[in-house]
């Protein structure tokens, strides 16, 4: 065995779940550590990012500090990998783009039920929140993506092994239905009729047939509009897909695509009543959607133009 590949990891706006998923390799982590040396990571007390071959970035860009760290990681990494859905698509933190920044701050620091005489902090010590949350590809050039919330441990391992061997990270391109083991009958009958008369909400999970397509039972499932590769863990646990792997490569975005599809298969009235259409369609990918923030949220445009100059 030659010299180990130098790897740096960091997390921006995220929950650290992708790093935990890496640790979830358990004993197999030792195989990975035979190939790589992690020289910088949030779990280590090292101040400066050294020059590395591979940089893994978890998390979205939500404040100025995130952006600074991201740019430094890009600078120091030969290969920069968006590690997990927040980095790839903005993820859960990206849902903040549905609100104006001042409303978010007011909610967090003033309006929460337990707050008394709250004030919105203003200090140069605290990194300023950006107007919008961004996927890291909005800010810097990204070489590869490992999507998933979090990406399954095996997927992370395979990606690292590929890079160590000088290969590309190849993601599957089909949707989750391709790997779904549930029975799939009504969807294949060429008949113009909704699959069900009513739409059930996910909390009624105990009533759901474990072996039958969720949509055919009237349960909202994002599988059709979601890239496969997750190993269908949720489906196996009788939980419908929530779309964390993001859109397939041919779709412009996940939210509009699932709206287009559902309109011909489930009764729209039931969906509007039972489901948060926006939250369902854009839960993980709002910052990379066609219209990634509110129309009345204009201040950012100046900043975005500044950023464009730095993109490659």
């Amino acid at each position: 065995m030659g010299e180990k590949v130098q790897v740096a990891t960091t997390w921006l706006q995220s929950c650290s779940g992708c790093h935990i998923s890496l640790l979830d390799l358990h004993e197999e982590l030792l195989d990975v550590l035979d190939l790589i040396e992690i020289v910088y990571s949030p779990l280590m007390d090292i101040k400066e990012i050294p020059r590395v071959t591979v940089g893994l970035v978890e998390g979205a860009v939500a404040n100025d500090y995130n952006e600074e760290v991201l740019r430094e990681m890009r600078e120091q990494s030969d290969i920069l990998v968006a590690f997990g859905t927040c980095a790839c698509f903005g993820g859960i933190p990206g849902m903040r783009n549905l609100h104006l920044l001042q409303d978010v701050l007011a909610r967090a620091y003033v309006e929460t039920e337990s707050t008394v005489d709250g004030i919105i902090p203003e200090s140069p010590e605290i990194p300023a929140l950006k107007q919008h949350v961004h996927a890291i590809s909005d800010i810097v050039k990204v070489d590869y993506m490992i999507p998933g919330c979090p990406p399954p441990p095996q997927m992370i391992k395979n990606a690292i092994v590929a890079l160590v061997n000088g290969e590309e990270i190849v993601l599957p391109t089909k949707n989750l239905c391709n790997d779904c083991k549930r029975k799939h009958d009504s969807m294949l009958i060429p008949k113009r009729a909704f699959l069900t008369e009513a739409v059930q909400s996910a909390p009624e999970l105990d009533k759901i047939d474990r072996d039958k397509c969720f949509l055919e039972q009237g349960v909202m499932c994002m599988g059709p509009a979601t890239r496969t590769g997750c190993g269908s863990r949720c489906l196996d646990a009788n939980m419908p897909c929530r779309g964390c792997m993001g859109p397939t490569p041919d779709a412009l975005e996940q939210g509009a695509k699932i709206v287009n599809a559902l309109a011909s298969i489930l009764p729209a009235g039931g969906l509007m009543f039972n489901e948060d259409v926006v939250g369902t369609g854009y839960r993980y990918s709002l910052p990379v959607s066609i219209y990634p923030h509110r129309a009345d949220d204009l201040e950012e445009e100046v900043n975005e133009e500044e950023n464009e100059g730095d993109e490659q």
Partner: protein
Amino acid sequence: MSIGLCLCKCNRTISDVVNIDALFDWYREQGIDVMGCDELCSADCQNELLNNIRENEWSGIVIGACSPKHYETTKNQSAILQLIADAGINPNKIAFANLREQLALPNSGDGVLEKAKCLIDVAISKIEHSADVLVEEIPPRRSALIIGASISGVFAALRLADAGYKVHIVDKGEIGDFSEYITPEELAKIDVSLTCAMTPSFAGIKMHPNVVMYPETTLTDVYGRVGDYTVQLEGGEILKVGGIIVCVRDAELTSKLRPILHIDIDSEGYFRPKNPAFVVETRDPGKYLAVGDDVRSDILAADSAVLSLTSILDKNEINHIIEVSEVDEDVCGGCGTCVKTCMFHATSIDLARNVSVTDATRCVGCGNCVVACPTGARDLVRYPNSYMIDAIRILGGFKTSGASPKVLAMLCDGSGYPAADRAGLMGLTYPTGVLPLRVSCAGRVDTQFILYAFKVGFDGVFIGECPEGACHNIVGNTDLARRANLFRAVLRSRAIDTDRLRIEEISPLEGDLFVEAINEFVDELRGD
């Protein structure tokens, strides 16, 4: 790829409003071959165009002239499309900029030249983003199906049978009882000799060796293309025919036949021709209507339909443009959404490979499955996704003057687009900031396009679609309505006023209603 641009002055109708010389210079500077002509519908200009195509070896041609509808629905103009194809240009590389009906006639003043450039750029984009379509040659079947043993049905059957065609005549009732098709009052009005001609006619088809009769029979399925249709009768019997003549005028029966035959209907619920001047032609060149207002016109219509049909079926070969929805098998995961969406039973899942496949003999190219496909694996040969997005980007670059709103008008091929053409021909006007984009069907309007239109700066999105029950593709407008109902929540979440999306039902001849609706929309957007 070298693209030619042919700019027609339309005998000054276009050139009086649009500065054609400026367009010439602009596109020459872009390295595009430009030719001009006074009237592209004249033989001289058409010859010049064909010579230019051959000499310059253009692989694509943009025709900046009158509405493409003229080229597609009238006999004299559609001939030139065939000649252009014969000169070596794939049918998918012929694109139109509608500079007459949708620019010079309804618009004037500032912005007209810039809008002309936008429309031409969109046409260039269509050529650049469209792959060649396959053109297949098939020998036509010399047989026909007559639907309805009415007076015209019986005469059409006789004519065809005498010409050597195998004729199948289907009627939901008895064959030979024409009291159902003609009232005693009407009978009393006509010449006795004509009356006498009819009873023997029924006998004539019954006795004719080339005629097979199916009384008290209904159709359960019809699919295929001119020259080769498959017809399934109640009970399962299958007929193979080259063409179909529809001879019923009964609104109830029409509504039953419509989802099987896919022929457009008018506002009264009767089958309608593709062009009011050509009363027997439908938009499917193998299906004809033979229905008159009285016995005489019934017989004339039967003769006209038979002549039209045999002029095609007598050919040795018929060209078919394979205009289907395509599947990216690397992305399709076999979910079946397209199967559920397609009204024409043209999509199915190949279970062995778990990918969706398209039956080219059933697909009508409406694009509803392309929109419904949650992965984006499906795409439409004639209106690809990448073209639609690029077209919206180009039109979004148009600068309106002052506070005038910018509206993307996505107009369906069946109604919205011809209604806008009609408005121009009626001399009606609307603001230049209304930018038309032709779509195959309201069912082709992807909600992604609507979001993208707002992203590139449109103040409003107007969709002109067929009235309820009259969609070319049966369910395109209802599917758009379902999608829009869910999609409005997406607009609200982005703080985009849902009133900025307007969906309007318009019949193809209602140019006045189109202008009324679009002007009202523009006024609302302006805040009047």
